[in-house]
């Protein structure tokens, strides 16, 4: 009896430690975002004069760091949406080929995709940058979209193919007997059935594009074309910059991915574990 009680107390203590460890940086972000810009050098656990003025400043773009806030927010959204569409299209087509058709080179394509998926993106950044310069895609948002597509598609193919393994081939064969072409099977049988996995990798692609920093700041440079992550990065080298404004932008920028994550959590867990892993 006492052992069970002690066990429960231990669990609760562990839970408290985990909670504080996880939430402290997010809490700090939140309270800094409501601290007046001049009162920041305090290290307080709750600001003396909390204010929502920083958010108003951000919305009205009233700071020289944030002249293009709305424009850059739109850029982030556009790049995320474009990446999502391209990744879903390319990966669903490719996964159908390697998973559903009888191809001699399917294992080869699979291994190529797997190996690509394993290479850390940061390690390819330098030649990728130079190749984009060669294609004339530097400082172009499509350059960044292709960067996200390059590093997300292999994983997406892998997840979709594994998910599709659970769909019986009899469905394809029945459709073929009815005279359906491969293209019709893809559109009418395959796509509807892999929908849960498409939601999982779609979310993954959106989060990846929205959160991307390294490639965004390497590829994009003009202030009307960069994403908000690049602008947030500018504060990095400037301790006298208006950090409460940075944190207000940070809170705003974190809300969409966090909301998306909470709303499709069920699919994410299924997708990620059926397809293996990607952090």
């Amino acid at each position, binding site marked *: 009896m006492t052992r069970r009680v002690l066990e429960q107390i231990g669990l609760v203590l562990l839970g408290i430690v985990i909670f504080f460890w996880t939430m402290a940086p997010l809490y700090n972000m939140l309270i800094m975002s409501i601290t007046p810009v001049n009162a920041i050098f305090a290290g307080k656990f709750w600001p003396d004069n909390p204010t929502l003025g920083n958010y108003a400043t951000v919305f009205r773009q009233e700071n020289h760091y944030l002249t293009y806030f709305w424009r850059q927010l739109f850029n982030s959204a556009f790049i995320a949406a474009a990446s999502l569409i391209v990744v879903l299209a390319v990966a669903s087509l490719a996964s159908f080929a*390697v998973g559903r058709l009888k191809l001699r080179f399917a294992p080869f394509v699979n*291994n190529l995709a797997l190996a690509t998926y394993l*290479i*850390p993106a940061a390690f390819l950044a*330098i030649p990728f940058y130079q190749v984009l310069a060669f294609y004339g895609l530097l400082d172009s948002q499509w350059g960044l979209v292709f960067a996200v597509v390059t590093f997300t598609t292999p994983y997406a193919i892998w997840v979709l193919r594994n998910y599709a393994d659970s769909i019986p081939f009899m469905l394809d064969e029945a459709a073929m007997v009815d005279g359906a072409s491969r293209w019709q099977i893809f559109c009418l049988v395959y796509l509807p059935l892999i929908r849960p996995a498409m939601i999982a990798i779609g979310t993954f692609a959106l989060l990846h594009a929205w959160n991307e920093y390294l490639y965004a700041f390497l590829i994009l440079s003009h202030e009307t074309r960069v994403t908000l992550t690049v602008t947030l990065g500018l504060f990095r080298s400037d301790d006298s910059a208006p950090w409460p404004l940075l944190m207000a932008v940070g809170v705003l920028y974190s809300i969409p991915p966090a909301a998306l994550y909470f709303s499709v959590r069920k699919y994410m867990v299924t997708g990620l574990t059926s397809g293996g892993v990607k952090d």
Partner: protein
Amino acid sequence: MLRRPSFPHAMTQAIPASSATPALPRPPLIASDTAWGLFFLFPYIIVFVLFVAYPIGYAIWLATDLKAYARIFDDPIYWRTAWNTLIFLLVGVNLKMILALFLSGFFALPNLWIRILGAFFLLPWAVPHIPSIMSIRWMLNSEWGMVNTLIFDLFHIDGPNWLTNPAYGLSSIIAVHIWKYLPFWTMILVAGRMAIPRDLYDAAAVDGATAIQRFRHVTWPQLKALFLTSTMLTTIWSLGDFNSVYLLTGGGPADRTNTLATMGIRYAFRQADFEAGIVTMVSAVPILVPLVILLTRRLSKAGGRQQ
């Protein structure tokens, strides 16, 4: 929108040979499947050739420049960076995976409050790197950050210079990396634990096994393959963890907390020495390539199913 592909040959062959001649192997089907396969794979092949094969080929070509190796090997900062990377991998990856293994036991418990906590626990993974790591950077500021304020309130001493002392800087980087990625790996191992058949635990309970025996004889043997795969995967990706280093310390003070990922970018874009940048990345190949080959085999064999 959905245009029909223009493969007349493939279209006429689309009727499955198996329905006409079930006993025979299906050469016509295979021939048309190849054409269709190339059609379906075409967009991915384009992406692969333009954005993977070409950059890698280009990097390999640049990496044959032996003078670039001489330049980086003459640079004491490079050796400091290589050493940092090794510490980061050995300490960061192992600490993270051991914690993930331990916490996966906690989060696999059925209590409602633990499952709610689990949803919050994953937030660091979903929230963008930039604002959260910048927030931690501010928390660790030695004069006005929350951490040292807390240390002062509790113990009435000045806390350490978390970001301006190289040893503390590297430790802080490891802590940020763990904060960011521990939740994800914990979730993967929770899924692995959930897949272990219940009756194994029932049998262990009948035999009167203690918690430690249960872990040693039931959980670990079932979880080992997944744990090893995950550890190898996260070793590779930690090698490429640019953000935790760059956003927290920027490699400083005096370039003493860089890892290979940030140092390569620094050579290439700060010092405009692309060859040095590339060979810095290439110097990780002895760790990277064996892991990639091993993992490609492991993962394609497992077919992606949870082991």
